């Protein structure tokens, strides 16, 4: 007899869903250009800063970039010298983009840029390596597509940082009290 499985919503899942619903509703209300809703904006600010939504997201994303970076390098090469060189280049790029002086949102955007840059760089290396050998047309098309997508992803990441800086969006983490403050 087939056993039916029932989806059980734990309190944490229910809370998360509730917050997500609330968030999407507030974002819809804030994003309406015809009817500016200052109350919704205030609510959104409260949800982000005081209720720690941003803090949660930051916590989740913290370390994910490093992990993705290392995984990508390990996938490409096992040689210690190459690995160290790529990591060094990534750190250098981060510093050039102003990682240390940036606010948490800028930092995330910079991490994304570095990851996309590495992705593009490694894809181009693999592309030239694969196409220098005799290959069929399907392999050529596959690598062409990969390089194009990696290039687009890198441009998008750069665009995100540019937007964050142009709009002067800030998301400060108050380390002293372990709080996140959104400067609206």
């Amino acid at each position, binding site marked *: 007899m087939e056993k039916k499985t029932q989806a059980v919503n734990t309190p944490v899942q229910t809370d998360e869903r509730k917050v997500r619903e609330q968030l999407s509703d507030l974002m819809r209300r804030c994003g309406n250009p015809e009817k500016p809703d200052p109350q919704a904006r205030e609510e959104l600010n409260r949800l982000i800063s005081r209720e720690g939504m941003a803090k949660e997201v930051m916590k989740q994303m913290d370390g994910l970039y490093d992990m993705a970076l290392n995984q990508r390098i390990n996938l490409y090469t096992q040689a210690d010298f190459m690995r160290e060189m790529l990591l060094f280049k990534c750190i250098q790029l981060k510093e050039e983009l102003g990682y240390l002086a940036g606010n948490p949102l800028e930092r995330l955007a910079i991490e994304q840029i570095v990851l996309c840059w590495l992705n593009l760089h490694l894809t181009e290396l693999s592309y030239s390596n694969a196409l220098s050998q005799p290959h069929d047309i399907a392999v050529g098309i596959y690598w062409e597509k990969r390089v194009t997508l990696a290039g687009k992803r890198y441009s998008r990441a750069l665009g995100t940082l540019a937007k964050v800086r142009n709009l002067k969006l800030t998301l400060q983490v108050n380390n002293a009290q372990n709080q996140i403050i959104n400067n*609206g």
Partner: protein
Amino acid sequence: MGLEIRNSRPYYYRKVRRDGKSTSEYVGSGFVAEYAAVMDEADQAENQTRRERLQRQREADRKADQELISLERTLKELFTTVALANGYHQPKRQWRKKRKR
């Protein structure tokens, strides 16, 4: 395989696909047939290995891409939320500050 034994003598026919039809192409008999059969088998094994390696690499690439896409999506969501909270809106795919009334 296309190696056929007739009257105790080997004959090798290579199977090729032409105009959507599978046809047999005579290669040779005797030693030539046996040699061609072994070489073709080795070629097939090599092609199979290459295909499998390519498949594995594509799978690894796809997984790595998924990770990148998910990070990008999360960052975009966070950016949108913070921009809206800061009083911006996006009427024509461009972020603008709302006018105070």
